């Protein structure tokens, strides 16, 4: 898919809560020792939720893009504080924006990139000039379940625009691939998701990511070597490394965007945050592959070309690595107090 008028990223922001739970603490309780596949995961504080992180990161993205007329605010999340009442209108109010589309998107971990796709279309059609796409989650894993090691919290936001004056990056092309594949789900009144263990691998993650990326490469005639960086959704540290290899991408290409080992999997923010991390170190002319995966299931793939504007991120921008490095460890007892409180 390619929009008829070019669409760019004019601002971006990433937010990771300060608190970290070492997976060794989880393993000590539930397995008697060892650790999870990732070293630690980020944990939202007692007064943080999807909405608070969305507001913070939207403000950062707008600070970078500068004031512009926003026509869409879409928050992709699977941990909405309200089952019914949009997070996006609270974000809009906090930004002082009212004449806008606003909606929450749900598609497991690909809701954020879904928002990027739709806003790209709205801008490309000329209906709006700018929009904010967010991927935000305070992911929960059932205590003692494998997902508990990786389910983390974070937010990423992108201001997309038709303004070609001095953009950060251009959305060159995108694809999307979906099937009905119930690898991971949560019923309405349940607190925690359920999943089908190893089934979440081949039939789910790998099939969909490989499908969307293969289609993108085919339709654009691009090779993996045409990309400087690649970001894949990161449910654990291993899957993105494996799918990269299968698709022909190297470990150097995926390294800047690989955050799961230190913050876990913040679901809708996972691959978007990898893009934030990568944009923090990218240079004009770099091409970036972004491929998300959402259970249910589907994958969005993007080809993004970095522009000169990447050199003018503004003095207010704090690199994601600084945000991630300013962390404080908590223990499992504190984690249980923070989890599920002030829902």
């Amino acid at each position: 898919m390619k929009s008829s008028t070019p669409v760019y990223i004019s601002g971006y922001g990433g937010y990771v809560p300060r608190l970290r739970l070492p997976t060794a603490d989880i393993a000590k309780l539930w397995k008697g020792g060892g650790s999870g596949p990732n070293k630690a995961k980020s944990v939202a504080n007692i007064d943080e939720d999807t909405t608070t992180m969305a507001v913070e990161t939207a403000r950062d993205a707008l600070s970078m893009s500068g004031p512009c007329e926003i026509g869409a605010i879409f928050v992709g999340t699977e941990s909405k504080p309200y089952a019914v009442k949009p997070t996006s209108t609270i974000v809009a109010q906090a930004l002082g924006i009212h004449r806008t589309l606003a909606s929450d998107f749900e598609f497991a971990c690909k809701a954020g990139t879904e928002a990027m796709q739709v806003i790209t279309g709205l801008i490309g059609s000329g209906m709006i000039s700018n929009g904010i796409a967010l991927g935000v989650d305070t992911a929960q894993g059932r205590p003692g379940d494998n997902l508990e090691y990786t389910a983390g919290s974070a937010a990423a936001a992108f201001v997309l625009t038709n303004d070609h004056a001095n953009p950060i990056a251009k959305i060159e092309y995108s694809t999307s691939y979906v099937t009905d594949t119930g690898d991971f789900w949560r019923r309405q009144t349940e607190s925690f998701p359920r999943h089908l263990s190893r089934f979440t691998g081949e039939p789910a993650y790998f099939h969909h990511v490989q499908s969307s990326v293969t289609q993108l490469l085919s339709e654009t005639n691009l090779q993996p070597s045409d990309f400087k960086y690649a970001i894949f959704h990161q449910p654990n540290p291993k899957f993105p490394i494996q799918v990269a290899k299968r698709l022909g991408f190297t470990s150097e290409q995926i390294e800047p965007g690989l955050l799961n080992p230190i913050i876990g999997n913040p679901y809708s923010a996972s691959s978007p945050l990898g893009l934030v991390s990568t944009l923090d170190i990218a240079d004009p002319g770099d091409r970036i592959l972004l491929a998300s995966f959402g259970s249910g299931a589907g994958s969005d793939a993007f080809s993004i070309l970095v522009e000169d504007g990447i050199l003018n991120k503004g003095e207010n921008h704090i690199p994601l690595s600084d945000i991630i490095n300013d962390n404080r460890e908590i223990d499992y007892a504190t984690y249980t107090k923070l989890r599920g409180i002030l829902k």
Partner: protein
Amino acid sequence: MSVSYWRNRDRYFRIIGSICNSCNHESFPNFYTCNKCNSEDISDKEMPNNGKLISYTVSSESMPGFEKELPMSIGLIKLNNNVNIVAQIVDSDLEDIKIGANVKAVFRKILADGDSGQIYYGYKFKVVNTKK
């Protein structure tokens, strides 16, 4: 309570106070008459979201609904426009909460009305720039 929250949400989300159009004096919360020059020519104004701590305390008792947030750090902040504001201080190491510390406003949950009521959001502050 929820209607009062709705009425004030812009003030809570964006720290909106007042500016006197006659003498440029700013105030938070908003005023109806300038308390410097008595002019009634007042407009809404967003306060700066940065400032310095001029006093602080750590409380071990709480208002109803805030029990799980103890101990609670509270600061008296002089914003960059010289307006003083009292707010919770969050995500800050205790040794960094001191007079003169630089603080920045953050958007946080204030209270949730149980499991089925509304969630109230608003401003808090956190200490920044502690590294040299």
